[in-house]
């Protein structure tokens, strides 16, 4: 079994190195195929490990080698395969395999095809380190590793020039990449502080050993550590106020958005909370904050998706919103439900994004849904996939999203946090509305693209086939919720609904369904019809206050630019030109000049005239006598 662990971990690394060998040469299709096979191998190994764990219940621990050892600090490369990590490993490698195959088709015209696979596989490798490590610093390696891969992939089309925010809200791929990296770094500092707190109070960073010492730690330390770790999680999972980078990250190629910015990397923050659940469980105040923030982000992101026109940005907002749901569940103590939603979300959201990629491919990178409409004729397969994924996202039975999201909403009711419950229910309605607004605007209604000269075509067949596993999983995952619960609660705490909630469960479910279906129906009436009832652009409404507020993302990016980015550049320039050059350096030069000038001024004494020298000698002698007399007075 140990070998399987190593294969699962290092196959993506081998894939990345292999593709890197051809990184600077012409597009070679076999690079994509070999890379996909490597990732597929990692998936099969992960699956075998999952089956092994399911049947025997043996957790595998491996210590590969020492890493950093100084003073009493000692951290090794150690890996653990338990219920939580094996879930993540399977999900990550499965989605990655699909995305690798998909990318062979999607990137077929890109001259940097080989380089793309190298980065993509490197990402998978980092993600595997992140989920498999048995200590916080190992997790941090993966954490930073996925950050770099995300930077490389968002900025993959680095040659594009910057545009103004009005032309393109994400400015340019390289700008968006830098934003993502820097925002994540801010949060990572929080994470590092969490690591420092844990190390100095427990003397170790291994999960088991840290959690074993929890009973001996005082509350202040646990609260500090959880806050700090959660700040890290907020960055990676793009929670408010670190959320702006995620929508800008849509500048990356669509397979990247599907894999990194929807299915896997952005869920790392949720994973961290689940992984450190004993710690977060011991800090109920922090956990409640997490749940509240999650609920807020769920609502906040959904509201911005309502008016967005960019296909990928709509899906990005929905990712943000679903991450909020996951945090809500984790914060309320339903860790396994959060993990279940994470997995279900990975499947249907990756499917949705890849479908969006097909549309984008067909429309030659046009993403404005106002310019689409009626495309289901040309792109039947994609239409089915995207509708399926949207149904799952909207939370209609029997698809995956229904089971996982309903459980989260029920948890909020069960914890008597009724306000959170209401927010989550309303958000579910909004989710259904914006998902179907996007589906209807793209595939139904009047054909708006042909007059604009677009002639969309369906994606390659092998790409559509490659997407099918996701479609199947987006459908059936929810049916195995009970089995999964039995499996995962070997490690994660059980979460039982109270008698009262249990009693009301079906009514609660109906409320959620009512909101979801109303959202869909409303979207249908507004956007899907043709002829007399067809959707028409209402420019007047677009000038409304709320519309503009939402369209401009509540002016948060603008705020960051005006109050952080610009002042930082200004202060930096002042520090350099006014302080460093004019004060610090000028002082040094002035001291030097003072010496030089005093020398220059007294040079006149050196006349070469003996009587002058005697005069000066007399002056000196008198001066010495005076000094001697004065010092004698004090002694």
């Amino acid at each position: 079994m140990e070998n399987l662990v190593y294969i699962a971990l290092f196959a993506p690394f081998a894939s990345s190195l292999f593709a890197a060998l051809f990184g600077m040469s012409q597009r070679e299709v076999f690079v994509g195929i070999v890379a996909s096979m490597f990732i597929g191998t990692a998936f099969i190994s992960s699956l075998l490990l999952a089956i092994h764990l399911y049947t025997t219940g043996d957790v595998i621990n491996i210590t590969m080698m020492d890493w950093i050892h100084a003073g009493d600090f000692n951290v090794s490369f150690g890996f653990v395969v338990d219920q939580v990590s094996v879930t993540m490993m399977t999900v990550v490698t499965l989605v990655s395999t699909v995305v690798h195959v998909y990318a062979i088709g999607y990137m077929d015209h890109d001259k940097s095809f080989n380089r793309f696979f190298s980065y993509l596989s490197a990402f998978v490798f980092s993600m595997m380190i992140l989920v498999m490590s048995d200590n916080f610093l190992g997790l941090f390696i993966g954490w930073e590793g996925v950050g770099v891969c995300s930077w490389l992939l968002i900025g993959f089309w680095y040659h594009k020039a910057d545009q103004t925010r009005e032309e393109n809200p994400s400015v340019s791929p390289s700008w968006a990449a830098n934003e993502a990296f820097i925002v994540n770094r801010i949060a990572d500092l929080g994470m590092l502080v969490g690591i420092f707190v844990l190390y100095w109070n427990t003397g170790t960073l291994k999960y088991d050993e840290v959690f074993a010492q929890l009973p001996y730690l005082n509350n202040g330390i646990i609260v500090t550590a959880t806050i700090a770790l959660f700040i890290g999680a907020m960055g990676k999972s793009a929670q408010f106020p670190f959320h702006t980078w995620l929508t800008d990250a849509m500048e990356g190629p669509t397979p990247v958005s599907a894999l990194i910015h929807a299915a896997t990397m952005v869920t790392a923050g949720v994973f961290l909370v689940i992984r450190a659940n004993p710690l977060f469980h011991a800090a109920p105040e922090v956990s409640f904050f997490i749940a509240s923030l999650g609920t807020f982000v769920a609502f906040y992101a959904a509201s911005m998706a309502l008016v967005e026109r960019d296909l990928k940005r709509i899906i990005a907002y929905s990712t943000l919103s679903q991450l909020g749901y996951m945090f809500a569940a984790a914060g309320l103590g339903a860790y396994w439900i959060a993990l279940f939603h994470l997995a279900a979300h990975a499947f249907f959201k990756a499917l949705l994004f890849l479908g969006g990629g097909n549309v984008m491919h067909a429309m030659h990178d046009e993403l404005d849904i106002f310019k689409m409409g009626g495309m289901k004729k040309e792109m039947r397969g994609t239409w089915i996939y995207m509708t399926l994924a949207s149904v799952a996202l909207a939370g209609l039975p029997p698809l995956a999203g229904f089971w996982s999201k309903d459980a989260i909403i029920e948890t909020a009711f069960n914890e008597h946090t009724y306000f959170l419950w209401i927010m989550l229910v309303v958000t579910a309605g909004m989710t259904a509305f914006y998902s179907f607004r996007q589906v209807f605007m793209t595939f139904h209604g009047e054909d708006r693209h042909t007059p604009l000269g677009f002639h969309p075509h369906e994606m390659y067949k092998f790409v559509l086939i490659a997407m099918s596993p996701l479609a199947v999983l987006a459908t059936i995952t929810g049916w195995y919720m009970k089995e999964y619960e039995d499996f995962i609660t070997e490690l994660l705490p059980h979460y039982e609904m109270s008698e009262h909630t249990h009693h009301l469960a079906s009514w609660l479910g109906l409320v959620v369904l009512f909101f979801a279906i109303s959202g869909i129906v409303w979207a249908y009436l507004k956007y899907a019809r043709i002829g007399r009832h067809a959707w028409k652009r209402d420019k007047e409404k677009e000038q409304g206050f709320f519309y503009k507020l939402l369209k401009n993302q509540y002016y948060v990016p603008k705020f960051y630019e005006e109050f952080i980015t610009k002042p930082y550049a200004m202060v930096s320039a002042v520090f350099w030109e006014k302080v460093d050059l004019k004060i610090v350096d000028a002082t040094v030069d002035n001291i030097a000049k003072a010496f030089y000038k005093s020398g220059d001024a007294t040079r006149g004494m050196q006349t070469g005239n003996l009587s002058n020298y005697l005069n000066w000698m007399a002056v000196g002698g008198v001066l010495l006598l005076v000094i001697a007399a004065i010092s004698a007075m004090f002694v």
Partner: protein
Amino acid sequence: MDNILSVLVFFPAVAGLLGFVIDKESARAYGITVATIEFLLSLWLWFSFDMSDAGMQFVESIPLIPNIGISYYMGVDGISLFILIMTTLMTLIGMASMSVTKNIKNMIVTLLFLEMTMVGVFVALDAIIFYLFWELSLVPMLYIIGAWGGPLRVYASIKFFLYTFTGSLIMLVGMLFIAYTYYSVTGIWSFALTDWYMLVFPKSMQLWLFAAFFIGFAIKVPMFPFHTWIPYAHGQAPTIGSVILAAVLLKMGTYGFVRFSLPMFPDASVMAIAPIAVISIIMVIYTAMIAYAQKDMKQVIAYSSVSHMGIIMLGIFAMNAEGISGSVFQMLSHGIVSGALFMLVGVIYDRRHTKLLSEFGGLASVMPKYAVIFGIMLMAAVGLPLTMGFPGEFLVLLGFYKVSPIMTILAGTSIILGAVYMLRVMKKAFFGPVTNKENLKLKDLNSRETWSLIPLVAIVIWLGIYPKPVLEPIDNSVKAMLHFMDEKAITQEAKDIIKLSKSTKEAK
């Protein structure tokens, strides 16, 4: 080979003297050969180094002027060993990558002399010998900047020389005072560091002496507000000068703190934690911001050096093995990484004769190999895990967290601000469309440049994944030093703050 250290110190100098009679055409090959032999010798030193011994090894001691206690006294421990190896490595690589053709023979001879003085500083255990090498190292650098530098080279080299020289004079006064004290206590003159370690000074005297040494070292590091010579020195120096300056000469200052200030004045060092931490944090934040405002690529790296040196200073004053070992490791990491970055800037300067960021853009598509290596070094500079930049920076911050969480968070902004200015360079120079036509024809790295950078890339990754072979001997010596400081400290506060590791090995 009992006198390996003497060989290491004087071989380059003797070879340098012979270099005068070498033909101009073969001067470069000759220099590289000598530097290679020197590097191999230093590797040999590492292999015969006893990893379990935390004390001084390969000690040589010959009385020079017995009347006043000056002796030829040398040795290495875990702390100096790797700085020494880095010195020989960076001299070799710097020389191999050098594109200078003007007066090449003089350059080679100067570099070999410089190598002697640098190795000498790190192995000297006698204060006078240390001081001699310390001051002598200024001369070749003065010449390198003054003779091969840019338009402001005379101003820059004189500023560099006078500034650091003034600092060291104050340090010399401190040294003479200690020797005198030693004489008045024991009745014999001695300048041997190991003898000086035995002196226990009263607190106030420790503070004065600490201050004297501080000025000498702080200017060299350079610490805020004594850092303004460095942008000029880097700005005017040829690539090779910047590489050596950043990689090795700055480390003399931080090494001085570890070798002199901490073990000799433990109480004063503990009292200096707060002020030094404040200065270090200013260095980290303030110079990182200045680096962000720069228009010249090389100045960004120059200011980033100061910012990184802030982290190193912070680690030295963490007073625990995590912080100090991390700090020494970070010295090595900064040496390799900033050396490589200066070489990379040199590559583009050789091609375009400008370093202004506004002249570039889109280089990644014209020079992909160059962009990849720059990217790797950039990631190491911002402390990405599994590169060499991470263990040091992490351990420093970890160590200092024990002393002050708030200050650690402030200094920790280095991981953010570092990314801010480095990514700006990456974006401006490498990303975006190629706007300047002149950049379209640029050639990617040639084989000389590639093969001098690849070893550095390999080291950066190797020591990021497996720092143990280097970190372990450093850590042993650091633990022993802390143990010694704890025993020697006279005040209770100092004893409380100096944190001993559970696994300390005694110095033999």
